[in-house]
């Protein structure tokens, strides 16, 4: 069963799993986990270079930008201006126009500041960025971001790093139904079944970091997530059976032994 391609800002991908690179023990583990996940897109954060420890290796030495689409994020930004500045700097490193826009509104929940996210998205789209915004699971906000020209919308399943899974499947269903751009569940996935569930709903992709990096065995969990996203996608396309209240026998009722 040939799948349709997964396209973001004109770039085609095979894998529908996007993985973060934070919280790993070291770059070697990051690399091994990314490889096991089969992801083609990896998120990274933009930070000041460490001047005093400058012999240090660089993340991109482990994740070759020729092999992976690097997706810089604006994590840690609390205003539209900070997020815009971060994206401009990220683009200047030279890994393309795709950016994960996140403008945080509250430190404890890490929920997005929706107004600031929309404001930043508007500016960034005009400047030629291919914007993938992390947003609340709100259908109207997702519509606005789509109208502005974002190349995807990325509603959260649950708070970042919470592992609570999909808290609002009905909103997600509405977002998917009205979307003309890919819908990627970003944040809140705890285990493989959460990722599969998102894909079964009809999401185009899933983005996660903590669920893999924080697992007891991150490499094994990376593989589990790869399989879950593939299985969920295939089940969605295969078309699940209707839910029924009563049983229907699987074995023929004729020819029963006297």
């Amino acid at each position, binding site marked *: 069963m040939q799948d349709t391609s997964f396209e973001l800002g004109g770039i085609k991908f095979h894998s529908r799993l996007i993985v*973060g*690179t*934070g*919280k*790993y023990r070291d*770059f070697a583990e*990051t690399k091994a986990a990314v490889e096991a996940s089969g992801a083609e897109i990896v*998120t*990274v*954060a*933009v*930070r*000041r*270079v460490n*001047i005093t420890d*400058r*012999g240090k290796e*660089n*993340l*991109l030495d482990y994740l070759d930008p020729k092999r992976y689409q*690097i997706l*810089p*994020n604006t*994590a840690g930004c609390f205003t539209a201006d900070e997020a815009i500045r971060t994206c*401009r*700097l*990220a*683009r*200047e*490193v*030279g*890994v393309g126009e795709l950016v994960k826009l996140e403008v945080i509104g509250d430190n404890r929940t890490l929920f997005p500041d929706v107004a600031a996210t929309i404001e930043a998205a508007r500016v960034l789209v005009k400047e030629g960025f291919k914007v993938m915004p992390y947003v609340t699971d709100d259908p109207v906000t997702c519509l606005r971001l789509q109208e502005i020209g974002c190349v995807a919308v990325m509603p959260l399943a649950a708070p*970042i790093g919470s592992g609570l899974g999909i808290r609002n499947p009905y909103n997600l269903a509405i977002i998917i139904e009205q979307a003309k751009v890919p819908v990627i569940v970003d*944040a809140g996935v705890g285990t493989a079944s959460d990722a599969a569930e998102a894909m079964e709903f009809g999401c185009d992709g899933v*983005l*996660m*970091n*903590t669920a893999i990096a924080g697992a007891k065995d991150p490499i094994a969990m990376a593989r589990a997530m790869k399989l879950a996203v593939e299985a969920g996608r295939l089940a969605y396309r295969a078309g699940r059976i209707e839910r029924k209240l009563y049983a229907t026998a699987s074995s023929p009722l004729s020819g029963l032994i006297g």
Partner: protein
Amino acid sequence: MLDSIATSITLNGDPYPLDRDTALTALLERLNMRRGRVAVEINHEIVPKARYDETMVRAGDHVEIINFVGGG
């Protein structure tokens, strides 16, 4: 004291000594940084990579050098 102010820049938020005007390329080399791995702002303006050779860093400049780190 005045001398030290006159001959330093602010690099990623901290004072950094700079004897004389220095090309950005030379500063990056001194810091052991590869241009393909970083982006630079001087006084809040991004410096395009093509202009690293001709861009001079001068005393009192505010220089930000960023790179990518692990993140979600």
